[in-house]
């Protein structure tokens, strides 16, 4: 995913986290699961939510909350796990992300996308791909790899 060129429409999956609407590129999403039993990994970082079983594969589950400066909400009937297929350092990585609610797969017109403003956001700018508008709502399109890429530095800062 390139960070500057945004030609054409972007197909995204939209979801809610702590009352905000976020989106990730739909092509990265492998599947969406209901909550499953999670195995905690003792002594791991707080953002690492544990491990889940996705069709016989052990997949780490991440809580994006701490990295995005959001509160974690208690699991509800709407809570879902979005399983993403990413590439980190050229290694394939499957990772699950807990979200409060999944809305839909939708198109965001390139014209409706804007660069993240440098002020007015609690989320670090390098995590954001752009801000899309949808009706009256803003959608924050996440640059999801970056969230895992600099996972270590976040804990310090």
């Amino acid at each position, binding site marked *: 995913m390139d960070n500057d060129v945004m030609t054409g429409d972007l197909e995204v999956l939209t979801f809610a986290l702590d009352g905000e609407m976020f989106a990730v590129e739909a092509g990265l999403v492998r599947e969406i699961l209901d909550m499953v039993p999670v*195995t905690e990994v003792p002594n791991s970082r707080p953002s690492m939510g544990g491990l889940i079983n996705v069709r016989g594969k052990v997949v780490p589950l991440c809580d994006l909350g701490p990295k995005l400066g959001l509160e974690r909400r208690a699991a509800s009937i709407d809570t879902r796990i979005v399983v993403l297929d990413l590439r980190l350092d050229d290694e394939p990585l499957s990772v699950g992300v807990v979200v409060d609610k999944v809305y839909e797969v939708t198109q965001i017109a390139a014209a409706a996308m804007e660069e993240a403003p440098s002020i007015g956001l609690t989320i670090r700018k390098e995590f954001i791909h752009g801000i899309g508008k949808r009706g009256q709502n803003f959608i924050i399109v996440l640059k999801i790899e970056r969230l895992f890429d600099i996972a270590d530095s976040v804990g310090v800062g």
Partner: protein
Amino acid sequence: MTANDPVATFRLEAQELLDQLEQALLDLEQSPDRRDLIDGAFRALHTLKGSGAMFGFEAMAGFTHHVENAFDQVRKGQLAICPALVGVALAAQDHIRGMIDTPDGEHAARGDALLAELAALLTPCGACRVDDQPPAQRWRISFRLAQDAMAMGNNPLLLLDELRGLGHCTVVALTDGVPDLAEIQPDGCYLGWDVVLTTTVPRAEIEGVFLFVADDAQLSIEPIGLSDDARLGEILTARGEVTQQLVEEMIAQRPVIGEMLVEAGKVSPEAVKSALAEQGHIARDNLQTAKLAKSADTSIRVPAERLDELMDRVGELVIAQARFKQLAAAGGDPQMKAMAEEMDRLSSELRDTTMGIRMVPISSLFGRFRRLVHDLSRDLGKSVRLVTSGEDTELDKTVIERLNDPLVHLVRNAIDHGLETAAERTAAGKPGEGTVRLEAFQSGAQVVIRVSEDGRGLDRARIQAKAEENGIIAPGAKLSDDELFQLVFQPGFSTAKEVTSVSGRGVGMDVVKRGIEALRGTVDIGNGSHGGACVTVRLPLTLAIIDGLLVRVGKGRFVIPLADVEECVELTAEADAHSRGRSFLNIRGDLVPFLRLREMFSTVPPPDRYQKVVVVSVSGRRVGLVVDQVIGEHQTVIKSLSCLHADIDAFSGATILGDGAVALILDVEHLVACGQGREEDRRLAG
């Protein structure tokens, strides 16, 4: 490499052929008149020449042709195997390898030199003929024991078993002597037997089988001189059941001779049955010979990745099956349960078979060392004998491949550092020839490989001095033999007085240790029973599946590799209460320190009332791990953790349990090291 690149395929095949050739040559050095080895070497050369020319390795084919000629002469008995010939052939074998690896390289000069050496040896000398095994002969054995034979303590089954031991055997029981039910004596022996036996043993040996029953039994033993495709009529005639003339008459009438003869009342149905069995026996004999000839090409080549993939799938199947079984058990539908059991059996068989495919006998590895020892003993001027045992011990293919480098290093060390020169040995009253032993055997879920020699052994004083010099231990430190010897695995440690080309740059043993630990194995060194140093390597059978002990700590479930577990005991309330100041258990008089996994994992829920201690052994020491519950054994398919969890080294991986939940696999060694670190922190803080 793509599978359909013919040159690459040829290279692979050539590697194998060259390996076979090398083994055959090295074996021939020991036993020069083994016919099968000579044939094997010849065949390998012949195939190399043929397929080499086909794939454009003409120079190699031309060179190989000459070597093949030499072995053809050996085969024909015109040339005897001698160490010089083996030496040249080994060098030629290396040369061929070189020509295949770099076909454009400059090989001509070396090749000519080798051929000249070979030609010098090709002068015909005393032929070494090998007595062929006597050809197998078929015998027709017909016997009927006395009616009271069983009452006398004879057992015809044992006789038949003994006959089976002599060779390929077809037994037909003749039931025509069995009386009506009312007249049968329960211990009477009414049956007769016709046996067709193909064997290489002489007649006397067959007669020996009947030694104790021969007096009262009707026994006939006669050779079968019929051609391989004998007809039933011929067989019956040869057995004297009918005359040739009668058979011919019958054949003239109808085609199915056996039935006709019976119908005509000329022979009993039993006799025909027996004769048919004889015919079948001969056919099977021929089939077997054909199979033996064919067995060379019944194996197929499969890329290793496909096997890995297969193993992955099977691992997933095993997990899915475990869930299915659990669901079926909960559902209570008996048909479902039966199905689940059936599937369970199938999937575990499939798992074993798949694991079996990946298992390779360690002989493929040991074989390489014979050449290494051969060359090293020449280079270092030490006479060395390599003794190997347990070559058929099997290990996972990946393990075997990655074991090569560490073992090469150990064998080199053994010869270079371990063994003295012949002069030193003779002075010490030992035989001039040193012995390096390579042993492999399976012990539980582990394979043990031992490299030992009968050299001077590890020198305590020198190791201590060296360790002090390198600052690995404090001067004057008191260490047990065991602790001291383990120091040679420290990086940068070498006691060799002089650096040789073979070993001794001090980068050895720590690399060995790391290589073996990467395979989840352990390595120990000590002085062995033969006087010299003895390195023991312990490896898991496979990297993909382990047996584990499933335990619970708080709400989390964890797998402890069963290979690490020594025993499980209860944590008594007494020991629990005392353990604020000291965390020791008294197990049959031994002090065993223990760690509480609840504390290490910061578990929140309150502990169970009766906690258990799983005693594990960590590099020779026993350590207890306190858990809430020991659930039981668990076949564990290892899944590695993603890079996101790479910073946590207390776990070596994860697995999926029967109910679909994920459980972590403890890395006992790192866990204990981590626990020690914590205790020290606490002590410093307190």
